[in-house]
Every structure is written in C-alpha cells, then in structure tokens.
C-alpha cells in the first residue's frame, strides 16, 4: 500500500514538474510546481518524516510560491512574458540538456535500484528534530541565522532606490 502510494505520489511529482517546465504561462507553471511540491510533501509523509512534509507545504508551497505569484501579479507582465517564453520553448534549446538529463536519470535510477530498500520507515517526530536542531546542529541554526542576516542586508541595500539626497551627492 505504502509502496503504491509512494509511486503514485512520485509519478505525480515528476509529471507535475515536467509540465511546469514546459508551460509558457508563468502562473500555470507555478501551479504545477505547487502540485509537485505537494506530491513531494506527501512522499516525505510516507517516508516517516511528517514534520518535513508539513514544512514543505508551509514554507515552499505556502510561502515561497505565494511570493512568486505575488511578484508576477505585481509585475503584471500580461502576454509579453508568454510570447517570450514561447520563443524560448524552441526544441533546439532544450533537447540536448534534456537528453543529457535523461541519461543521468537512467544511470541514477539504475544505481539507486541497487540500494538496500528501507521498507519500514521510522517516524521522526517533531520533538526529535527540535532536539537535534538545538543539540548537535545548534551551530548550523546559528550560522543559518547569520546567512539570513546577510541576505537581508544585501537585499535591503540593493533593493533601495537612491534617495534624493544621494542622487544630488552623486551629481555634485
């Protein structure tokens, strides 16, 4: 049962991602991407990592993708983006990378097929995750916080328009 569900979810994830790649309309692509993320979340759930599954939904599907859609709405590109995308969907652009990826995929699946499969996943509870995050990995959390700080400062600086005063200083 679990195995069947796993493969169904995996197939959905793959298919949705594939469709997302080939959409010319950004919003459509995003919707498929969300579907793919949900399917991945479901796989996490099946593998005994419900915490990761829920985080996947909350953070990726619920926050990041929403921001993507938000940006697209703000920019309101209309059909221009679609036209550009249509030109980029020329087979000559994607056929070689796709073939290479396909070869990689085949090799990968052959290799992975040889691994010992874990049939009874151990469920990892949120508490255990918390303990390991604040135990051995507490430094990782701290470093990640610094990383976010760097991102914040950088984004704030780059995103800011030059104030009038600065522009005058620039000219003067």
């Amino acid at each position, binding site marked *: 049962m679990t195995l069947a569900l796993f493969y169904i979810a995996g197939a959905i994830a793959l298919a949705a991602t594939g469709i997302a790649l080939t959409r010319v309309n950004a919003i459509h692509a995003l919707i498929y991407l969300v579907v793919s993320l949900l399917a991945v979340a479901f796989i996490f759930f099946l593998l005994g990592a419900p915490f990761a599954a829920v985080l996947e939904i909350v953070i990726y599907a619920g926050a990041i993708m929403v921001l993507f859609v938000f940006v697209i709405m703000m920019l309101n590109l209309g059909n221009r983006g679609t036209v550009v995308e249509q030109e980029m969907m020329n087979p000559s652009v994607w056929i070689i990378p796709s073939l290479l990826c396909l070869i990689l995929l085949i090799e990968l699946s052959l290799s992975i097929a040889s691994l010992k499969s874990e049939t009874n996943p151990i469920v990892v509870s949120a508490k255990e995750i918390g303990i390991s995050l604040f135990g051995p990995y507490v*430094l*990782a959390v701290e470093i990640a916080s610094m990383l976010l700080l760097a991102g914040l400062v950088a984004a704030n*600086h780059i995103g800011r328009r030059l104030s009038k005063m600065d522009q005058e200083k620039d000219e003067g």
Partner: protein
Amino acid sequence: MTGTDFLALSPIIALAVGASVLLLQIAFLRNLKLTTGITVVTFLACLFFLFYITKLNHQTTPLLLVDPLSTFFSIVFVLCACITTFISYEYLKNRPGRNDEFFLLVVLATMGSIVLTYATHLASFILGLELMGIALYGLIAYPHQDDMSLEAAIKYLVLSGASSAALLFGFALLYAITGSLFFPDLLSGLASPEVAVGPQSPFWARQLILLGSALILAGISFKLSLAPFHMWTPDVYEGSPAPITGFLATISKGAVFAATLRLYVIGEFHNFPTIVTGLTILSIISILVGNLLALRQENIKRLLAYSSIAHFGYLLIALIAAGTLTPNGISAIEPSAYYLAGYIFTTLIATGLIAAISSSNNEENANLSDIAGLFWKNPLLALCLSVSLLSLAGIPLTAGFIGKLYIFQMGVEAGAWLLLSILIIGSGIGIYYYLRLIFSMTTDPSSSRSTLAPALPVTVSLITLTILVLYLGIYPQPLMEYLLWNT
C-alpha cells in the same frame, strides 16, 4: 557546549558579535569612519582569538573541527579581510550613497569563510559556502547604480546557485549510500567495492558514489572557477567593486579550497581513480585556458581572473599527487596550504593596488595604461606590485616560488610528469603577461593620467603584505614546520 567548545568557536563568535554591533550602529548612527573602526576592531579581536587557539585541536559538534591547519587558514583569511577593510574604506569614502552596510557584509562573508574552513560536515560546508556567497552577492552588487556590477552580481548569483544545486545533489547521492553527512564517515570505508553498501550490486553503488562525487566536483569547480567552469570569473571580477574583486580572488576561493582540501583528505576521495582522473583533466585545462586567455587582457582585473584560474590548476596537482603518495592523501595539506597562503597574500597586493587606482580615479576599472609609469611616480607601490607579480610567476625569493617548489616536489614524487610539463608550459606563458604588467609600470609616465597616492593605511597594508610574501619566500621554514607538525 563546553568551555572548550566556546573557546574553539571564539573567533566566529567574535565576528558574530561584531556583525551585531555593526548592525545596531548602522541603525542608529551612520558614520563610515566609526563603521570601519568597529570592523577593524572586530577583525583584530577575531585574530586575537585565532592566535590564542593555534594549538587547539577540538571537534565542536559534528559540524566544525577546529584544528591548527584550519586556524592557520582562518588567520590568513581574517588578516586579508582586515586589509580589505582598509582598502574598502579608501574606496568607499568618496562614493555616493549609503556605504556603511558594506562592512557588515564583509564581516559576514569572512565569517562564512571561517565556517567553511572549519567544516567537517556537509551541512556546515554548504552553510558556510552560502553565507559567504550571499554576502558576496550583496557586495558585488553594492554600487547598484552601476550596470556592470549588477550584471556581475546576477551572473554570480545564478551560477553560484546552479553550482550549489549540483553540490547539494551530489551530497544527497553520497548520503544515499553512506547515510552520513560527516566527512570522516563519507567514503572512508568504501575504498573497495565489496564494502559498498547494497548486497545486490556493488557496481552500481560505486557508480552512484562516482556520480555524487562528480557532481560535487563540478560544484566546487564552479566556486574555484576551474576551467571549463570558469566562464563567470572574468566578468564577475571585472564588474565587482575593486576591494571585492580582491575578496573574491583571495578569501572566497581560498576558503572553498581549504574546505575542499579537508573534504578530499578526510573523505579519502583519492581512492577513486575516476575522481583523480577528473581532477587531472580539470587541472590541465585550467592551466592552459587560464594562462592562454590571460595573454590578451588589457584589463588588470580580468587578467588576474584568468591568472587565478591557472593558479588553482597548479594547486590541484598537489591534490592529485597526494593520493598516490600516501594512503590517506594527507601529504596534500602542507604543499597546498603553503601555496594557497602565498597566493592569497600575493593576489591581495595586486587587487589592493587596483582598488587604490580605482579609488583615486573614481572608476571601476584599471587597465594596463593606468599603471603606466608607476615605477617613477610611486616606486614603493610599484615595488609591491612587482613583488606580487613575480611571486605569481614563481620567481625565487617570493612565496610563489616556494609554493611552486612544493608542487614540483609533490609532482616528481608522484611521477606526474604530464602535469609537470603542463605546469612548466603554463608558467612559461604566465611569465609573458606578468612581465607585461611590470613592463607597463616602467613605461613613460606622461601617457597616464592617474595620480596614485593612496592613504597611509592602504600603503602600510600593501607593504605589510609584500613583506609577508617576501618573508614566506625567504624564510619559509617556520611555516613549513607548523604545517608539517600539525597535519
């Protein structure tokens, strides 16, 4: 977390505290001088702690291992970051816009580099890499009115994102085999096929390791800009603010290499002939491509970018040779650490000088014509740059020569004749463009419009670096002993 843990982490904590203080200072009072002062104090405090723990060998959680080697690297990086701060102050003080956050990002990027050097876990590896990468992204785009720097930043962002993705995928594949992200548990047991995990088909498990390692190799090659993954380097170097070009060429690359060195040695990657072959190919292509493309450059930043590609090709020889010499590849550490330290100091002189030129011209770029007549206008700086270029060319009495001596020694002992001949050819080509730079410094000064008189801290920094390069070249024994005994 014990007391020793905190002691081991004290340099990183110093930087974190410094970053927080800077953040608060910038929030309440914008003053470039004060910001620079706090940054310098932060780096000095960090250096103090680093010198305090030079003998410490302590695993702090699975993530970080503080040992004399990585402490040595950290000292080099923080020293360079401190000098970058001086240079940046000169560079920024006459620029429009808000320039204070620059130093905050420099502190964070330096912190990333230290984390990277101490990393013994793929998680801390990627976190350090990204911390440094994101801060650098902000730094490259810092003069965001400038199209060049924005273009450079976007190139850097996209390509380093792609390379991080490759790295992560590689990590995931290794994790699938070994079930661990901790360097010592990664591949050390997998030298022979029968130990490989699955009972069904060790062959394919081995393929999976290779695939994962290849992806990691590709990701790291991007960061180290080894050919053929080097395309971004010249553009990004050219577009970045000059002090950041220095940071990219020295600390950033150095930290990635230091981490790679540890991953390679502890993870015992040299047991895989395919990986070694891959490294050999990367090395050869990097040496040839880097040197050949540098020949035609008029822009010094681009020239240095290509030269750095070649130099990391040379450095790889130590890694390749180490595998055949010792069962655990540990002999790679001493040569490459020495080479890297020499290279970093040397390159920082050159980029520092470019920054000084850019600051006095108020322009982003320095061309060959900008250093024309430097020998007659400012002989001291000309001497510094000459020492730097001669060190890059590997002429004796400079750190570059000792580095090259090490590489030769490793190569000969391992019998890597092909690589050595490529190295000689590459060095021969390299001399041409280094000498071109020296030559243009000696030409008639009337053809150049720049007046170069950097402030005292910059001059002192550059002279300090020059003395360091000469010291490492003339009296290498102490550092050699430190590296030999502590690895």
